[in-house]
């Protein structure tokens, strides 16, 4: 009792001092509360109020987080690390989120629901908060909380509308799979905590503890821990949920799921990976092997399965699984290089996926289907749309002159550097598989132009849709930006410095 009384003031001081480091997230929190209130009261007066508040909140947090650039600090007893890496990551997250919000608003605002759209925004904000924390923490407790925040809000996002069977099924699979992996991860964490007695995975004791830990239990613990992160990143073998959920969920939600949450998890994993592979002990090697193998298998499986897809959303789901593999590769490469390579690839990946799903959303609304066969000969009716889709396909394959190519090139470069540095065969395999899978991926990405342009299609009637212009324009801008970034990557790269 005594010691608490003694400590309490100092602790409070600490907390108060740490508030500024947290202001970006605070903005989100206020926006969260604001949007809830707006949903309850204002929306009756002005339908868009909650939407506007959300936008404001996100933009605010974006601005606030950018102010932290170049001023590394940490708060809350070192639970939060605010370095440039996290700032950039959060920047990407916020922008992506912004676009997602617009997509969602455009997609739903004209539909008649029993439910109120405002809640969705608040949930999105909650998710954003979780992701922000994910990018800044090196503490298992915060990390777990953040992951769960993101997960739970994603569950709700998927299940919220449940207009049809598929959506509800998707949400069920998502929530059950997610909770199980969360539980497993929690168990793993408990073991790790047991070995180390410390929750900060960057701290000396933590690593010391892991070094001393019994091999077997350690490997169990690490694997369990990876289950949780694997679920978030959806790499093999924790990817099983992804295709079903992506297909089932409303397209804008899929857009969100396939991009934003991955970034947070990836940043966390990057920090972890960098800390833990630095030692020359068993567990470092173990982590390295686990990630490399995961990357290889994921690239192969994702791209191979995608070959046989006829539903474009499902195909993109597998493609994003394949890309997760490549992201893991970039993460391995991150050991050799500055984070800007990783960030660049993340950014490019986000842009591409946002654009693709945005266009898919439009197509779905216009043709009422996500089946590729139904797009036969549509190239004549939507030349621009399909040209942009093709361009994005090229970028996803990683062909010049697109940003996807530059990203791939940098990743290869960094991996090659590692390979040249220590002649480890894993790196070589990574390189070869990375190259091979991009060839494989061409097959299915080019199904889109194949159906749209090469095939003669029977005229299918276009459903009357209310305004999709904003989404359309955004997607096109994003698509073009991949081209621009492909020719002048320095625009983005110089940003991340």
């Amino acid at each position, binding site marked *: 009792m005594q010691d608490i009384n003694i400590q309490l003031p100092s602790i409070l001081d600490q907390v108060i001092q740490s508030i500024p480091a947290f202001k970006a997230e605070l903005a989100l929190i206020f926006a969260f509360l604001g949007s809830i209130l707006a949903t309850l009261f204002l929306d009756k007066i002005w339908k868009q109020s909650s939407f506007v508040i959300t936008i404001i909140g996100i933009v605010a947090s974006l601005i606030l987080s950018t102010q932290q650039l170049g001023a590394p600090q940490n708060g809350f007893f070192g639970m939060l690390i605010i370095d440039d890496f996290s700032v950039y990551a959060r920047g990407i997250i916020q922008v992506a989120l912004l676009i997602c919000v617009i997509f969602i608003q455009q997609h739903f605002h004209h539909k008649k629901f029993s439910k109120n759209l405002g809640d969705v925004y608040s949930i999105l904000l909650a998710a954003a908060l979780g992701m922000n924390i994910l990018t800044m923490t090196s503490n298992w407790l915060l990390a777990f909380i953040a992951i769960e925040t993101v997960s739970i809000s994603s569950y709700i996002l998927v299940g919220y509308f449940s207009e049809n069977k598929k959506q509800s099924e998707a949400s069920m699979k998502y929530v059950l799979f997610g909770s199980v992996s969360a539980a497993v991860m929690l168990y793993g964490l408990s073991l790790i905590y047991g070995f180390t007695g410390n929750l900060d995975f960057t701290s000396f004791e933590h690593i010391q503890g892991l070094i001393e830990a019994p091999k077997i239990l350690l490997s169990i613990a690490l694997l369990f821990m990876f289950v949780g992160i694997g679920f978030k990143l959806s790499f093999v073998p924790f990817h099983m949920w992804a295709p079903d959920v992506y297909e089932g969920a409303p397209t804008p939600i899929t857009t969100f799921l396939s991009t934003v949450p991955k970034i947070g998890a990836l940043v966390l994993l990057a920090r972890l990976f960098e800390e833990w592979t630095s030692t020359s002990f068993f567990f470092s090697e173990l982590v390295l092997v686990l990630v490399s193998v995961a990357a290889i298998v994921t690239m192969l499986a994702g791209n191979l399965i995608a070959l046989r897809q006829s539903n474009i959303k499902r195909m993109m789901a597998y493609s994003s699984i394949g890309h997760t593999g490549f992201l893991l590769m970039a993460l391995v490469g991150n050991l050799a290089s500055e984070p800007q390579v990783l960030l660049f690839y993340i950014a490019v990946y986000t842009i591409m996926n946002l654009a693709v799903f945005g266009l898919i959303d439009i197509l779905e609304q216009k043709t009422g289907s996500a089946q590729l066969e139904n797009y036969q000969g549509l190239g*004549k009716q939507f030349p621009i749309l399909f040209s942009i889709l093709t361009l994005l396909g090229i970028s996803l394959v990683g062909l010049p002159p697109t940003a996807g190519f530059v990203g791939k*090139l940098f990743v290869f470069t960094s991996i090659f550097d590692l*390979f040249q540095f220590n002649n480890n065969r894993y790196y070589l395999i990574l390189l*070869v598989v990375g*190259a091979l899978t991009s*060839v494989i991926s061409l097959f299915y990405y080019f199904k889109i*132009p194949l159906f749209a342009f090469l095939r003669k299609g029977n005229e299918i009637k276009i459903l009357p849709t209310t305004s999709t212009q904003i989404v359309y324009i955004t997607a096109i801008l994003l698509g073009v930006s991949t081209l621009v970034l492909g020719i*002048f990557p320095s625009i983005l790269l110089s940003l991340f410095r």
Partner: protein
Amino acid sequence: MGLLSLLIFLPLLATALILLLPATMRQSYKYIALGITVVQFALSGWLYSQFDNAASGINQINGFQFVEQLPWIRLDLGSLGQLEIDYFLGVDGVSLPLLVLSAFVMLMAIGASWNVTKSTKGYFSLLMLLNMAVMGIFCALDFFLFYIFYEVMLLPLYFLIGIWGGVNREYAAIKFFIYTLFGSVFMLLIIVGLYFSVINPETGANTFNMLHMMNPNNYVDGSFFAYLNNYYEVLGIPARMLGFIVLFIAFAIKIPIVPLHTWLPDAHVEAPTPVSIILAGILLKIGGYGIIRVCLSIFPDAAVDANWWLGLIGVISILYGALNALAQKDLKRLIAYSSVSHMGFVLLGVASLTAEGISGALFQMLSHGFLSAALFFLVGVIYDRVHDRNIYNFRGLATHMPAYTGFVAVAFFASLGLPGFSAFIGEAFVIIGTFNAESVGTGVSRWMAIAGSVGILLSASYLLWTLQRMFFGQTRFKGGEDWATLLTDVSARERTILFPTLTLALLLGIMPSLVFDKMNATVLNLVSLVTQYL
């Protein structure tokens, strides 16, 4: 904006124009394309006339002409070192003739696609895009830039074959794309490796500059592709040899060599006439050009070890392609396989590593550029009329379409190496050079020359046989009378395209100096660069 940039990016202007003009002005598209291409051709002609024959090109920048070098991407990638990518163009004796060739073949292609009606907007814009990429490839001296143009080229082709192609076009298009991509993706890995191994002596930054890659002193000791104390091995293959092999495969797919050729018959047969013209006239040359510009110049030490195998592959391609051609019933397929055979000479000549051989190979590329283009155009002539190419469905065309037969006969005899036409000079000097190789001691054996000459015999036999089967004898068509009415003799447009082409083939055959004078210095420089590792 230098001349080369102008040459490269003019087509882009055309694309923009075509895309911007409304569909109501559909008729103007082809004229825009034609105009731009004519300007390009004139420009390339100007370059040709201004070219200084003494410039030796290959590995030192002052040997190149019309050079443009602008810093393009400069990045500090931290531990990955300084990223240095230049917008770096220039031509030497190897690339200049190919530039002129490309400009000319493009002109032909536009002429051949005069009657295209299916969505002309897309067609001509894609054609112009392709045009740009091709020009870029021949001018680029920065490996990154080269690679970009190299890949950009694939895309328009995919659509040109896939949309305007024949029955089996989807298969052909994707097959072509996948084949090339397979090669080029691994080429990318090698490029990355080179990037790490090579340092720009001025700035000390890692560079993609090809010319720096050709100078052993710029290699970092102990780096992956280093000349000195390089102990890297993959599957027991030394790193530099590996790099050579991978790059060679990447370009060999384009040439194409046996057994990596199977995309070619499909692509050629399915592609519309203009695209086959471009494929045969330009794209196959990129393979040969790449091998000379990249494989030989950057990995000369590996090249001298591997050239026996190159020669062998060349010989195999020659014979294998010719034998295949002998058995074809589809005229277009026959010509496609004959391309395989004729391009085999290019590889053989390059492998010989003698001045005669390499010059012969380059000359053969040019002559094949003109002749195969003409041949495909000629096939297009009857295909346009009756939509049939089967040799056995025609008989005695000579009496029915005398002028057409005249053109075909000239083209056939030219490409079977009748003296007086370009193909003869090319093949003869490839063979002479290959024969010489043993005396010089580059390791290519003499029997290859003899085997190659057997290829000439075979080419004569299949072409003459075709001539006999299709054109001589009593007139008899599968389609009967209505074919007889459809099969009108070559039109004025067709004449105006064919005549200059064949004339050029003849001119080159009579005055090879037109080309040799431009390339001699470069070739000698290349030979000296490579043979020092013998």
